[in-house]
């Protein structure tokens, strides 16, 4: 639980549905890439992501290394403008990140 993962969230409500979009700064190393010296870069990717709204986990994602670098994800849930929600992420090194966002 050392370095924290950066997450950026945008959320907008329309007709009672919150459209949430997020971007996570993460190398998403697949463990298959080699560096300049021909050494394999160790696997390091996000594994899980949670969205919490009013105390409930409304959405949850499990990632493998096949998700693109700096992962982007959009999802939707029932909610309203002005409310806060929380996004948390954890990766294979047990590094975590958390961000609070206000629904527009």
């Amino acid at each position, binding site marked *: 639980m050392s370095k924290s993962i950066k997450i950026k969230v945008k959320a907008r409500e329309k007709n009672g549905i919150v459209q949430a979009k997020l971007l996570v700064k993460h190398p*998403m190393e697949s463990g298959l890439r080699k560096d300049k010296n021909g050494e394999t870069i160790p696997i390091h990717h996000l594994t899980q992501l*949670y969205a919490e709204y009013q105390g409930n*986990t409304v959405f949850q994602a499990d990632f493998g290394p096949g998700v693109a670098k700096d992962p982007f994800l959009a999802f939707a849930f029932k909610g309203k403008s002005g409310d806060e929600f929380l996004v948390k992420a954890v990766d294979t090194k047990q590094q975590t990140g*958390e*961000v609070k966002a206000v629904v527009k």
Partner: protein
Amino acid sequence: MKLTRRNFIVDLLKGSSFIALATSFPTMAFAKWNEKAFKAKQLKQALESKYGKQQIVDSGDILLKAPTIAENGAVVPIRVSTNIANTNNISLFVKDNPTPLIASLNFGETSIPEIQIRIRMAKTSEVIAIVEADGKLYQTKQLVKVTIGGCGG
């Protein structure tokens, strides 16, 4: 499309926050990360590790939007949505990736089964979206071509 500074600033300032804090995960509301399925090297193994031997039926009720030809296999934008009732999971597989299971997305009672994600594709392959609803499995597939670029635009 025109990207102006003004609409961008609005998005940047109002729509988002950028407070990253170290956090702990006291509760894991959903199942543990399925290591076996995510590390499986063949589609068959990945499917079995995730769903067991359960039958998966083709469905026209899943909308999978992926490019016919990917601009760059490193970032392939995908959209999936479904109107199958009680959908609690959408999972994405790329048949010919080194590890075919890409992501597994779980929906709570108040969430809408529609997602957008950007994935990696090692080469031309079928992309498969599998929906889990009421304990049943549904799927739809699309071929996405990944080409070797020349100059890269």
